[in-house]
């Protein structure tokens, strides 16, 4: 059960939603596209608005026009027998004309770099390829919000980086809002501009990533969230008064600042 959730997300934002196992982050995500209460039993008290319109009472199939969802397990979200057909699935369901479907499918494959995979079957793809195809399928519906639930769990680090970067590129080009659920912050810290932290069904922190990390890194670690190592390092050095300033959120930032100090 989650409660007291008061959040708004704006287009173009990259929100990192995090918290310990069982905190309710997936529950929250499922509310966002109508899976709760339509697919999972539950009551939704309160209002959920997307683009200013209430979605709570709509079927998931309706809400998915606005809110795209990429699931954690890459293989279980591809249902067609070929990649191309899978990507076309969403637009087909939207009742679009064949030309429009064709256009969207081509565009989505282009945007995710999956052109070369179009005739392959889902089980023939690697995990990273499957995630990209799932992303393409969601993109083809042209949603205004994309929710990704721990999309990198099953991927190796290099592939994971590629997928997250692709998501960020899309966000920048099309001004969609992106919500990524992840508890390994180092994978997304470079891209996220905002972080929302949940614990035991409630939101306990919400703000710019750098600020929240700086303020609350100890508490986040205690909750089981994987604070980036560079942030922890900086915090340790700061504790001994060897450096100052707020905690860097990713390696490049830390390296830049340390370089100046170390080579002065």
């Amino acid at each position, binding site marked *: 059960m989650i409660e007291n959730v008061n959040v708004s997300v704006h287009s173009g934002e990259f929100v990192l939603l995090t918290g310990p196992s069982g905190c309710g982050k997936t529950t929250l995500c499922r509310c966002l596209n109508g899976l709760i209460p*339509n697919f999972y039993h539950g009551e939704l008290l309160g209002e959920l608005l997307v683009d200013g319109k209430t979605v709570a009472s709509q079927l998931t*199939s309706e809400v*998915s026009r606005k809110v795209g969802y990429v*699931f954690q397990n890459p293989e279980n979200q591809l249902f067609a027998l070929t990649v191309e057909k899978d990507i076309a*699935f969403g637009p*087909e*369901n939207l*009742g*679009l004309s064949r030309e429009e479907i064709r256009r969207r499918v081509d565009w989505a494959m282009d945007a995710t770099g999956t052109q070369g995979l179009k005739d392959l079957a889902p089980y023939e793809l690697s995990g990273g390829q499957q995630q990209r195809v799932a992303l393409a399928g969601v993109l083809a*519906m042209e949603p205004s919000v994309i929710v990704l639930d721990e999309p990198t769990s099953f991927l190796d680090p290099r592939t994971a980086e590629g997928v997250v970067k692709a998501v960020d590129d899309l966000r920048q080009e099309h001004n969609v809002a992106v919500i990524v659920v992840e508890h390994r912050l180092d994978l997304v810290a470079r891209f996220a501009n905002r972080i929302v932290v949940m614990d035991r069904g409630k939101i306990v922190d919400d703000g710019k990533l750098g600020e929240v990390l700086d303020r609350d890194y100890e508490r986040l670690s205690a909750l089981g969230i994987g604070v980036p190592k560079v942030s922890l390092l900086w915090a340790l050095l700061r504790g001994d008064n060897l450096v100052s300033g707020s905690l860097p959120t990713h390696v490049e930032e830390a390296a830049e600042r340390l370089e100046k100090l170390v080579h002065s």
Partner: protein
Amino acid sequence: MHRLDPRAKFLLVISIVVTSLLFTSIYVMVALLALQLPLLLAGRVARRWVYSLRAGVFLSVIIFVVNLFTSSVYSAIALTLRFLVLLTTFSLFFMTTSPDDLGLAIDKIGFVRWLSRKWLGYPNALSFTFTTAVRLVPTLAADAQTVVDAQRSRGLELDKGNLFRRVRNYVPILIPLLLIAIRRSLELAEALESRGFPGKEGRVSLFELRLGRADYGLIMASLGGLSMSVWVFLHYHVPLV
């Protein structure tokens, strides 16, 4: 062969099946088999066909032996050959038709759409059930292998013990597999809804089955062959041997 429309191919299957059921003649059966050989070769599935014949050996022998007792040797041979003709024609159909195309074809059949609407509420639901089932087969097969591996790694020995024990040993395989299949299906269903399934009534597919010249040719040949068989059946008696 693979590119022909499944509906045309199925008509061929029907005409062969009907012909083989109308006659009890060794000549006819051999002719039907011979007719399909070039098709098997054209579809490059000849080798797989031979393999499927091996699977049919057991039943063939039973059919032969049973008929040996109820009628003559020649009759037994003819009936066994009929079985092989049927086996071959269905194999030919399924080996040259991708599940994709099959799904698309099923989706076009008015009756299926009607049934689907009645049972499940949506016209494309039934054909979708079919393609999803096919799509899951390799995945679940891999899961099954993994479960077997995992349980063997805990000391489970599947090839030991009496019949009772062996059957019981399958419990640690079946339960996880069942649960995994259910879990996969649920996740698929979630993902489906999140992509707008079932969609609107007038839903258009990116790919469409279209009958080409070769298909019409096949349809005409099948209908021609079928009518010829019926005519021959009504006017002549084709000897058994």
